[in-house]
């Protein structure tokens, strides 16, 4: 019988990701891998490789309908979970490395957005959204102009080293996201709201920002990670 001594040390390093996904590790080893995942992108991508490849084995498991009360228990558990939303995952994303998230920048951005909409006579209740990542820190401020047909988006942060495009989405209840266009990481931008959506930017809508291939999502739906989101609220 062959033994492990003949396994290349480089391969052993990679194996831990496969063993983690396969589920053969004990509790302590699992926690150790999870601690490393936050700091080691190579390990994280190896874990993602195995999750995607081995994941199809789950097709062998017959679906079983859970009891009806499960959903109401989940629903009841959510507000508490939402309050505890901040996760540390975002801190490790390369995207945020270039960001200096400062309260001062947000304040300046908010003032800039408010000053802008202030230039137009108010004919309706101004709507604003503060878009935050899961860390809870605001990353963009968006304001609907008083005429209701333009959206000013001001990044609260100035730099990103991520080469991907940044796309803004309108999220309406029970509908697929609608693209509002690409925004710039370093400067305020004015987007024209498509006429069919102009009346839909109300307080029950939300905005989300995702990272997309250069030029924007090829599918018309978000394809990259959502880096910030927030509800529109009336001032």
């Amino acid at each position, binding site marked *: 019988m062959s033994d492990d001594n003949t396994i290349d040390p480089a391969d052993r390093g990679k194996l831990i990701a496969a063993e983690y996904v396969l589920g*053969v590790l004990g*509790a302590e080893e699992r926690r150790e891998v999870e601690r490393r995942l936050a700091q080691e992108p190579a390990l994280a991508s190896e874990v993602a490789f195995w999750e995607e490849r081995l*994941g199809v084995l789950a*097709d062998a498991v017959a*679906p079983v*309908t859970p009891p009806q009360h499960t959903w109401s228990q989940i629903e009841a558990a959510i507000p508490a979970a939402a309050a505890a939303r901040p996760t540390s995952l975002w801190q490790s994303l390369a995207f945020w490395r270039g960001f200096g998230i400062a309260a001062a920048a947000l304040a300046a951005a908010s003032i800039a957005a408010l000053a802008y909409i202030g230039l137009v006579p108010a004919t309706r209740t101004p709507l604003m959204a503060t878009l935050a990542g899961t860390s809870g820190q605001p990353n963009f401020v968006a304001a609907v102009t008083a005429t209701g047909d333009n959206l000013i988006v001001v990044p609260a942060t100035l730099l990103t080293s991520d080469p991907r495009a940044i796309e803004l989405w309108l999220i309406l209840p029970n509908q697929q996201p609608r693209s509002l266009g690409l925004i710039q990481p370093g400067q305020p931008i004015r987007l024209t709201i498509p006429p069919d959506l102009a009346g839909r930017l109300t307080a029950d809508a*939300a905005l989300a920002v995702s990272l997309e291939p250069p030029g924007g999502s090829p599918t018309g739906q978000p394809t*990259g990670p*959502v880096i910030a989101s927030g509800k529109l609220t009336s001032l």
Partner: protein
Amino acid sequence: MDADATRSQLAAALVRVASGDRAALRIVYQDTCAKLFGVCLRILKDRSEAEDVLQDVYVTVWRKAATFDPGRASPITWMVAIARNRAIDRLRSRAAGGRLEPIEAADAVSDPAPAAVERVELAQQHQRLTRCLEELEARHASAIRAAFLDGATYEELAARMNVPLGTMKSWIRRGLLKLRACLER
């Protein structure tokens, strides 16, 4: 509805969940709960524990939806990974006990009907994985499937297949390395 549409609808729903949309979580739940409950039940072999874990899974989905990257993972695979991780953690926290089924049970369900595979892309991945598993020694492939489906540790697998622990580790590690090489071809 075609496979890509199903996938992109689920991905879109997850994006809405990331923005705090509870109705979207309900859609995600309806589309995936039977599959994920099956996965949890298979690992835990206990309905009430599986129900607990299932709740925890969707609360986790709610919290982590913003980290889901539709460009890198299929939505169902992402959710299966969360469900398995939660179920395996629950299993590990339980005192070691003899609730696991014999290894034959894993083999018995290891060849799903093609109809069970809903998405074209996943179907292709499934074929590739099946082909690569077939290149392995039968008992190595069998140990890998059992490990995945039951979330069993090396120790449990060694006991179930009646081989020394070192042998089981070697089977699975060698199997995984060969599998990786094959999947990358």
